[in-house]
């Protein structure tokens, strides 16, 4: 095990897979000589040359589409989009082309296309550079949606992404690139659809992903001091979703809180909650709590930005409510 930054773990995954498979290539804005805005691709141009590490013009629909076409034709493109917000310019290529091709060809055609991008708040970069848009992709049949929260998961999931044949929305978090964590030595692969128990506990299950995982772990630590044992589950991939891990944990703790940075309406948390209602209802001792972003675009002002997405006190209060330690929230009027 070594301690690595999230961005370095991502680079290791790209490097190892590019060395292993000559059809893996990367395109994006400023990713070649500059090494990308978050330095994830630093050094790869020198190692793999301008054929496989290419800068693109500012043409998101074009570069995403070209990636999808290359994948259909048998290569393994990684298209880096600076902000998930900009992926909206390429939505036709993601939704109508990449996601549907396998079905439209009766299962013959596959699209091993990876879009690496990042979302979330934290940089003071305002409404068009701060969104958490996983629910858009989660909703579309045919896409895999991956949201690593640790360097080890980032590496292992990206390596797996480069060895499977479906289109992957690989959603990193701008706040996590410089975070550190232990990464196993040698070949490290994390298969899709396998969640991870980031902290074992017995009183309440908290499901969180991406940057909400470290935030929730801090809360769990605080609550441990109060004698509350929180189990933190990170699904790691939202599609496919590790339902079994979620339902088993809920069956054990009988209480569940779901934390998502994205705004509440139509979000992934709501869907996970509905799965628990349908398949785990009889285990529950309390209503499922959802802690989510407000249903507004992200404001620039720091206090407002923070007020727009889940913070530790809100997560803590929801956990306490699930444990009947605080009065249940009044239904929103």
């Amino acid at each position, binding site marked *: 095990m070594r301690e690595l930054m999230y961005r370095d773990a991502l680079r290791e995954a790209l490097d190892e897979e590019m060395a292993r498979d000559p059809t893996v290539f990367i395109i994006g804005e400023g990713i070649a000589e500059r090494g990308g805005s978050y330095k994830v691709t630093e050094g790869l141009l020198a190692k793999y040359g301008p054929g496989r590490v290419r800068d693109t013009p500012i043409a998101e629909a074009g570069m995403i589409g*070209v990636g999808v076409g290359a*994948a259909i034709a048998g290569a393994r493109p990684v298209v880096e989009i600076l902000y998930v917000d900009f992926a909206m310019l390429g939505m036709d290529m993601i939704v109508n082309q990449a996601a549907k091709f396998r079905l439209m060809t009766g299962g013959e055609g596959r699209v091993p296309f990876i879009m690496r991008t990042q979302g979330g708040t934290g940089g003071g970069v305002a409404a068009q550079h701060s969104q958490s848009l996983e629910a858009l992709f989660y909703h579309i049949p045919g896409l895999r949606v991956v949201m690593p929260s640790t360097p080890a998961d980032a590496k292992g999931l990206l390596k797996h992404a480069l060895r499977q044949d479906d289109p992957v929305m690989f959603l990193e978090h701008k706040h996590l690139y410089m975070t550190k964590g232990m990464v196993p030595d040698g070949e490290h692969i994390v298969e899709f659809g396998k969640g991870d128990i980031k902290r074992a506990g017995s009183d309440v299950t908290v499901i969180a992903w991406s940057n909400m995982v470290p935030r929730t772990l801090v809360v769990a630590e605080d609550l441990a001091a109060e004698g509350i044992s929180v189990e933190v589950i990170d699904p790691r991939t939202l599609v496919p979703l590790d339902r079994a891990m979620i339902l088993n944990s809920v069956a054990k703790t009988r209480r569940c809180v779901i934390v998502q940075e994205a705004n509440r309406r139509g979000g992934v948390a709501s869907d996970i909650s509905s799965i628990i209602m349908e398949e785990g209802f009889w285990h529950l001792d309390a209503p499922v709590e959802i802690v989510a972003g407000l249903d507004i675009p992200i404001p620039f002002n720091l206090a407002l930005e923070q007020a727009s997405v889940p913070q530790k006190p809100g997560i803590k209060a929801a956990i306490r409510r699930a444990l009947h330690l605080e009065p249940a929230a009044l239904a929103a009027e």
Partner: protein
Amino acid sequence: MGEPNAVANAPSREILEKIFRTAYKIRVFETEGIKLYRQGLIRGYFHPYLGQEGIATGVCAALKDGDYIASTHRGHGHCIAWGADIKKMVAELLQKETGYCKGYGGSMHIADIKTGNLGANGIVGAGIPLGVGAALANQIRGSDAVTVTFTSDGASNNGTFMESLNLAAIWDLKFILVVENNQYAVSTKIEESTRETDLYKRGLAIGVESHQVDGNDPLAVYRMTQAAAETCRKGKGPVLIEAVTYRHMGHHVNDPGKYMPEEKLAHYKSRDPVDRARADLKDMTGITDSEISAMETEIAAEFAAAVEFSVASPEVSAESFAAFAANY
């Protein structure tokens, strides 16, 4: 053996025959397919390629095994010219399991990756980046394959057109963009959607070798594509070819096309690409009428057999569907 009546600079009889057979096959497929549609055997959209046969025919005759194509919503002709199996095409239109996409795709999604056919597309303009992507994959693999995307006048106003062609240009990809300018996007005349109706000029604006050709002259299209493919294989691509043409009917089988002026339609019908291919074959090889009608009979029989095969074919079973759905 010398060819009778050989014309200087004429392509080989093999090529001329291939061009005629292909154009005629598309004509039969579309004409007979429309009848099946009217009988209720085909549902959904059916965009006939009637009147545009010369383009797919000429382009594909100039390509090689190992090359790639990407097509449009009006894609039957491209598939046929690419050498698709008519049986599997008809079966797809009849939503049968024996079709190219097992009935999951239909007219607008026929693809055959194994042969380099990246597929028709229901989204206008979407085939352009997909084709450029295939060309990029081939460049990275060190292949000398050429990729052709067939696109349309309507698509030329979509952002994907310039974005993707520009990517092909900065990366010197072996890519040919064939813009089939049939002068309409459904009922919208080209003059209403752009001030510059010579669409090849868009390529010039971004440094792409670009040409205009008579889309109703299959041999001219063939020759131009041959030259373009050569340019690409030398690493001097991409190339844009605008092929000017006209539909023989409305936008799809249920569009009467009343907005198409009669004189203009008559003008283009008098310059029918299938007739042109037949005349070229005769003039340049001296082939007899009876040899030609033998070919026509053979093609008609091939289509009839495809219908028979398709009608008798099963649809995807509920169990097979459930197994497939589990992938999602």
